[in-house]
């Protein structure tokens, strides 16, 4: 089972666990990406996330399919938030469940690394004295 959601609403870890929970599985692993209050020595006031939603859902689906192929995991939940987020807010939650503990850790790590590479979601960091699209320039 793969559940993908992109939303402007607050993410809920319990919801994600419930969606991934499966009596056939003996292990679940999760990753929660949260907003840091600083970057390169500067204070971050907020982040603004933007998304090309139709393509983002397809790219996340491809990553989930690949994770299932590579690690043979059973269930994957990926929820990503967009809009304005403040330090401490969860930007992404990934939960993976399967019968084997090593596979769920590996799949979780694989999924977040690949989300950062190919999924069309962008964040702008807003500082007290300026703003910057993350990773845009070399």
């Amino acid at each position: 089972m793969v559940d993908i959601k992109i939303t402007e609403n607050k993410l809920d870890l319990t919801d994600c666990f419930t969606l991934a929970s499966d009596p056939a599985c003996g292990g679940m692993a999760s990753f929660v990406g949260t907003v840091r209050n600083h970057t390169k020595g500067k204070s971050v006031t907020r982040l603004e996330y933007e998304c090309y939603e139709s393509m983002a859902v397809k790219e996340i689906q491809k990553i989930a399919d690949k994770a299932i192929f590579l690690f043979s995991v059973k269930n994957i939940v990926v929820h990503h938030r967009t809009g304005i987020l403040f330090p401490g807010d969860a930007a992404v939650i990934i939960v993976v469940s399967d019968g084997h503990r090593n596979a769920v850790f590996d799949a979780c790590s694989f999924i977040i690394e690949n989300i950062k590479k190919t999924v069309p979601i962008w964040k702008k960091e807003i500082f007290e004295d300026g703003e910057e699209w993350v990773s845009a320039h070399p």
Partner: protein
Amino acid sequence: MILKILAFGITKDIFGTSEKEIEINEGASIKALKELLEKDFPELKRLKSYFIAVDDEYAEDDQIITVSNEIAIIPPVSGG
């Protein structure tokens, strides 16, 4: 043909809009589109990289564009 290009992130700032219309020859490739965009918006060349997506898929340089495609410019992503 007139193409409508969806722009996100920093490319939205560069174009000054989230939907840029651009005129290009029928049968143009992704490479030709990128060259045209870079001529009009040299700032694109300063980005770490950028891609063109056609109908929600990353496109190769030699892919041919038609007016019915949904075209989007994808600057370096930073999700998560």
